[in-house]
């Protein structure tokens, strides 16, 4: 009986194995295309509204976007003709003229030269309602009293941002490095996708020098002897409001002042004063 049983099981297994190719064929199904939504945005529904319009905002950071959008949805734009508020923070490189026109951003944080590059006649559509003060960008190093020169940069690993539209992470430091001309090897430059990974590698001493506005807690307490300010002072960052919504300017300006004072307090080494901010 046990021998017969084993024999029967064996035969059943063989029969299953013979059928396996057909079973595999039957199991082959192709996935219907899955398109994942872009992740660099946050949306909320405006309270107490029957409006159908969408309020799009762009800013080059995701700092407290949820709270930012929610404030607009719950208070600033409540009872207005908007259905949703969406904040976007995609890399600036991804912003194109077509996108600017088609997405019809209502509010925009950028520099005017960047905006001019995208849409030369931007001032036909947008008005700057608030500017951030210029802020100091510094070199941070692990070495005391470092004076930037072709000689001192020899064999140093320098971290920069990949984002070629970033003034503090790429444009300003790169132009300063260029001034030291030859002697600087391209292999010394390490590019990072965002500030966090750049600063983390610097703190882990994988990098010798980085440019920063000091937005990291540890960089804020960095000894002055180990920093050196860049000669270049940042150009103005401004909030641009679409002219269609000019009537919203006063309330938006009040909230944006609060938001950016907190932003700069947390993310720069330099104190921020409100009166300097308004253009």
């Amino acid at each position, binding site marked *: 009986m046990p021998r017969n049983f084993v024999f*029967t*099981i064996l*035969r*059943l*297994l*063989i*029969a*299953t194995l*013979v*059928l*396996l190719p*057909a*079973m*595999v064929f*039957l*199991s*082959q*199904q*192709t*996935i*219907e*295309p*899955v*398109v*994942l*939504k*872009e*992740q*660099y945005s946050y949306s909320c529904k405006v309270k107490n509204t029957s409006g159908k319009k969408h309020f799009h905002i762009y800013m*080059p*950071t*995701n*700092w407290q976007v949820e709270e930012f959008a929610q404030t607009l949805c719950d208070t600033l734009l409540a009872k207005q003709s908007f259905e949703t508020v969406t904040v976007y*923070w*995609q*890399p600036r490189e*991804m912003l194109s003229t077509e996108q600017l026109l088609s997405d019809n951003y209502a509010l925009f944080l950028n520099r005017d030269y960047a905006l001019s590059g995208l849409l030369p006649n931007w001032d036909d559509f947008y008005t700057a309602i608030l500017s951030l003060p210029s802020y100091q960008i510094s070199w941070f190093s692990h070495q005391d009293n470092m004076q930037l020169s072709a000689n001192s940069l020899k064999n140093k690993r320098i971290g920069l941002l*990949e*984002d070629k539209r970033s003034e503090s992470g790429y444009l300003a430091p790169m132009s300063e490095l260029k001034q030291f001309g030859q002697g600087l090897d391209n292999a010394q430059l*390490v*590019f*990072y*996708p*965002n*500030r*966090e*990974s750049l600063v983390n*590698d610097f703190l882990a001493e994988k990098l010798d020098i980085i440019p920063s506005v000091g*937005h990291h807690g540890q960089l804020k307490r960095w000894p002055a002897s180990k920093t050196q300010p860049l000669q270049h002072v940042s150009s103005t960052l401004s909030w641009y409001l679409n002219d269609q919504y000019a009537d919203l300017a006063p309330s938006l300006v009040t909230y944006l002042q609060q938001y950016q004072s907190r932003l700069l307090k947390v*993310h720069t080494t330099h104190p921020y004063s409100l009166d300097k901010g308004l253009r």
Partner: protein
Amino acid sequence: MNYLKALVLFLLIFVGLIYLSGQNAKQQLMMTLAEQLPQVVNPSLNNAIDESQELSRMSHSLVDDLHDITFVSKLPVDLVASLTVAELNLSKTKLSGSNTLNWQFGNHTLYASIDSSVNFNYWLVAFWAGAFTALGLLIDYLFTLIFKFQPFRQKVSIPDAVNSGKDKLSTAIEELRWFDGLKQQGLIKGLTAQQELQLASIKEQQQCWFSIALKQGLNIEQALKAAEADDALCFDLANQQVIIHGVPIRLSKTPLLYYFWYAKRKFEAEPAYLNPPQGKPDHKNGQQLAKLMQQYGGHQKAIRDLDEGLKGKTLDQNRNKIKTELQRVLEGLACDYLFDSERDERTARYRYSLKLPASKLKLGP
């Protein structure tokens, strides 16, 4: 048993189909995600202040887009109805497990682990498992046929090897059922191959003699000799026995000598002996027999009785003793070694002589 077999096969195939289609669906999902996740995750991290926090936010946000993913198949057989990602975990630190992906973001690696659940069209799976079970049973049946065919071919090939001793022996064993009874009675214990062969070849009559010989206490070797021995009656008076067809049978002295006397008469071609009449014993033959008895150590009383002459009654008694003893040992075969009788019409008495022809008699061993 057959129902059980079908059920086991059905379950095996059902589980197989569920596993295969589930794995295929998950694999397809992983391939899609491997392509798409970096495209949507990386741009969002570029301007992120806190990577880990943003990864955690995206983990939740992405799951919302990954429910009820559907599949198409070449045949109208959608075993998988849909797939839903129950949990997606994006991380900067390494995640282990089978359903994980990783890709490069700048100078470091990002990881994703995906936990998904598959919704099957169970009725469709059951239908196909049923169809495959039927096919499987057919295949199984064909196997059985093949296995049945194999031993048949082996049987056919036996004649080719029939000359070999081993096969001859195995054939003989199959036929030698006649001595199973002897084995059960404990008369046969352990046969050599040669003996088995001999037993295989002996005739039915010889089988009887073989059994009788064994019962008389002979060993297998001797019994086989007896079975093949000549059909003869031999007197071994020294050992107080007759040897019939090679089987020794011990008799009491007096009946044995009466038996011998009848044999001697037959051997010497004397006619059948007419019993003497009552009250008129045969003195002449009485003395002859008494002489034989003295020669072969017969009982004194029997010899003395014979002094009065040979009596019909004594003859009858001794023949009966011989008959009883031979029948006890030889059963049905005894009659050939007993006496023929013939009624004398004139005197109405009986004549007796040995049934066996003189040629089959041996008066001494």
